[in-house]
């Protein structure tokens, strides 16, 4: 059957800012967070730079370098994913994290190794930050034996028990329930480990968000719920799907600690996560973080992106989290352009190594079709 017929591999072709596609607009004028972003983008960038510098000065240089490396690796790796996807090397869906790297890096790198992480289908970068190799992730995308789950999971389902990476989940919101249970187990076992549970802003509308937060607060489970608000659930902006705009505030329905964080600012994400971790390690108290960022790419590789303008995307790119972090590191005199270039080269090399590995890795043997059904 014709693959092309059902999978549109078009690049992002957003409609121009001027053209409205429809006379029949929702009566509810969507609150456009972009407009705000436009005016304040530059100012915010400068302000963020200042506050980042302050944070940077308090932070270990090796860690800072590793944070930048992970952000750049995420970016480079996924740009390459998009390329090889278009070449037909990757099947199924492919959801990219480009633009959101500061969230994964700022939060996961605030953890210790024994802590747990899980997220949605948009999981490549989080998986790598938690320690799965670029080879393991890329070969999984290729559906090869060398993939981190042997080719059985694919883009949406990266896992590693050893590294405490609990997936990679495809049902919007499903991982919120699972993550709550992981935190339950951490407390039950008497550890002071914590769970980071990531999900998109559209997943907040699922019932399981509500059910989970109630239990987590009622029983004080050390779960840090990180809502990655990238403004859209597929083609639907938050304003068209949610009756209020302030997601952090929903924590108050459960008496849960909550905080709004700028997700373009890796140091801000890091501090907010550290505060949440402290609460969680102390007595298990959970936290809801709303971390606002922006998804540069389409929802998945098959998304033509007609629901937003090129301008909207560009404005957000002006506040790019990698750019911002580099500027701050430079201003704080912690790193130089040269080091940035070196990091970029390392990321490219790691990615190319991953591609090579994936190309060479064999397809899984058909013998494994019926293994892993039961333990």
């Amino acid at each position, binding site marked *: 059957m014709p693959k092309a017929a059902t999978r549109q591999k078009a690049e992002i072709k957003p409609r121009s800012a001027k053209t409205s596609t429809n006379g029949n607009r929702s009566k509810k004028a969507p609150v456009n967070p972009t407009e705000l972003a436009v005016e304040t983008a530059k100012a915010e960038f400068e302000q963020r730079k200042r506050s980042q510098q302050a944070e940077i000065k308090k932070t270990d240089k090796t860690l800072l370098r590793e944070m930048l490396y992970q952000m750049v690796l995420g970016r480079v790796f996924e740009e390459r994913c998009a390329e090889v996807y278009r070449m037909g090397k990757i*099947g199924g869906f492919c959801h990219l994290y480009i633009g959101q790297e500061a969230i994964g890096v700022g939060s996961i790198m605030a953890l210790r190794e024994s802590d747990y992480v899980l997220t949605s289908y948009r999981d490549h970068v989080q998986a790598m930050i938690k320690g799965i190799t670029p080879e393991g992730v890329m070969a999984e995308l290729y559906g090869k034996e060398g993939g981190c789950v042997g080719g059985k999971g694919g883009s949406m389902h990266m896992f590693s028990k050893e590294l405490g990476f609990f997936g990679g989940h495809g049902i919007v919101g499903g991982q919120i329930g699972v993550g709550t249970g992981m935190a339950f187990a951490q407390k039950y076992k008497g550890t002071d480990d914590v769970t980071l549970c990531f999900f998109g802003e559209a997943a907040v509308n699922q019932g399981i968000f509500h059910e989970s937060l109630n239990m987590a607060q009622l029983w004080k489970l050390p779960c840090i719920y990180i809502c990655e608000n990238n403004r859209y659930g597929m083609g639907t902006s938050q304003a068209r799907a949610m009756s209020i705009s302030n997601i952090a505030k929903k924590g108050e329905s459960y008496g849960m600690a909550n905080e709004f964080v700028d997700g373009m600012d890796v140091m801000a994400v890091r501090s907010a996560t550290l505060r949440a971790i402290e609460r969680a390690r102390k007595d298990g108290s959970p936290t809801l973080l709303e971390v606002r960022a922006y998804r540069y790419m389409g929802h998945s590789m098959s998304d033509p992106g007609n629901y937003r303008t090129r301008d909207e995307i560009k404005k957000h790119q002006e506040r790019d989290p990698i750019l911002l972090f580099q500027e701050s590191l430079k201003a704080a005199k912690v790193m130089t352009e040269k080091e940035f270039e070196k990091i970029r080269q390392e990321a490219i090399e790691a990615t190319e190594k991953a591609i090579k590995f994936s190309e060479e890795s064999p397809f899984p043997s058909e013998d494994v079709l019926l293994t892993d059904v039961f333990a």
Partner: protein
Amino acid sequence: MQVLTIRDALNQALREELLRDENVFIMGEEVAEYDGAYKVTRGLWKEFGDKRVIDSPITELGFAGLGVGAAMAGLRPVIEFMTWNFSILAADQIINHAAKMLYMSGGEFNVPIVFRGPNGSAYQVSSQHSQALEAMYANFPGLKVVMPSSAADAKGLLKSSIRDNNPVIFMEQETMYGMKGEVPDDEDFTIPLGVADVKREGTDCTIVARSFTVPQALQAAEKIKEEFDVSVEVIDPRTIKPLDIDTIITSVKKTNRVVIAEESHSFASVGAEISHQIMENAFDYLDAPVKRVSTAEAPNPYARNLELAALPSVDKIIAAVKEVCYL
């Protein structure tokens, strides 16, 4: 006659029913401004506007429930699940509410609602996105279950489903949306629920196929004809519930041999049901046990080679036909 893809045939059916009856509305994720995740609702929001074609939050249980209530109050909702996999979140509203409302209200409230969307595998979308769920829903009295395999069937059956006064589970197949076929031009073209279609006549063996496996069965039949000069009849029940067992039995009484091909897992499947009903109704006519071809008893894998190994295929159907024909 016009030649349409299944996607466009469904789109036409939706459009015509929206025009015909203002109580019909469409709701689901991305059905409106985005034109549908798989473009089945393309253009409808532009034509009919916010009132009739509605983008919902990602809230499957909620909007399925909303549909049930709206149907009880006299509307005719068409609820799209982006894929049937996500309907599992809404299963309580479908099974405990929609299916039982008429009965437990002693006939007071019927629920004229269509739940629709793609069912089964796509291309490498992995375990959580590749399930064929017809067995799950067909087990519950009060639900009709429809699974078209051609453009004409898609259109005629969807129109009938929307006009039906009961909850209808309408299952499409993503990989088949682009398949083309002739579709009658008549705006009142409908196909009644509960009538099977003989997709190909034959005398030596019957294949009962539905949805994904119908084109495979037809191809298999051609190849078997060429290779073994065995004449295969292909029957598509089209509606799983009510099931037109009579048409199947008539065929079995003629061919005496049956293969059932289905994309779902096999255990307690619709294929098992058809097999049992064949045994019940044509026991003395069977020259061989009924053989099923189903998806492997594992969650669907991602890797393309594994996925192909898991799914039913032309070759697997041919092998099964050979087995029941002792070739």
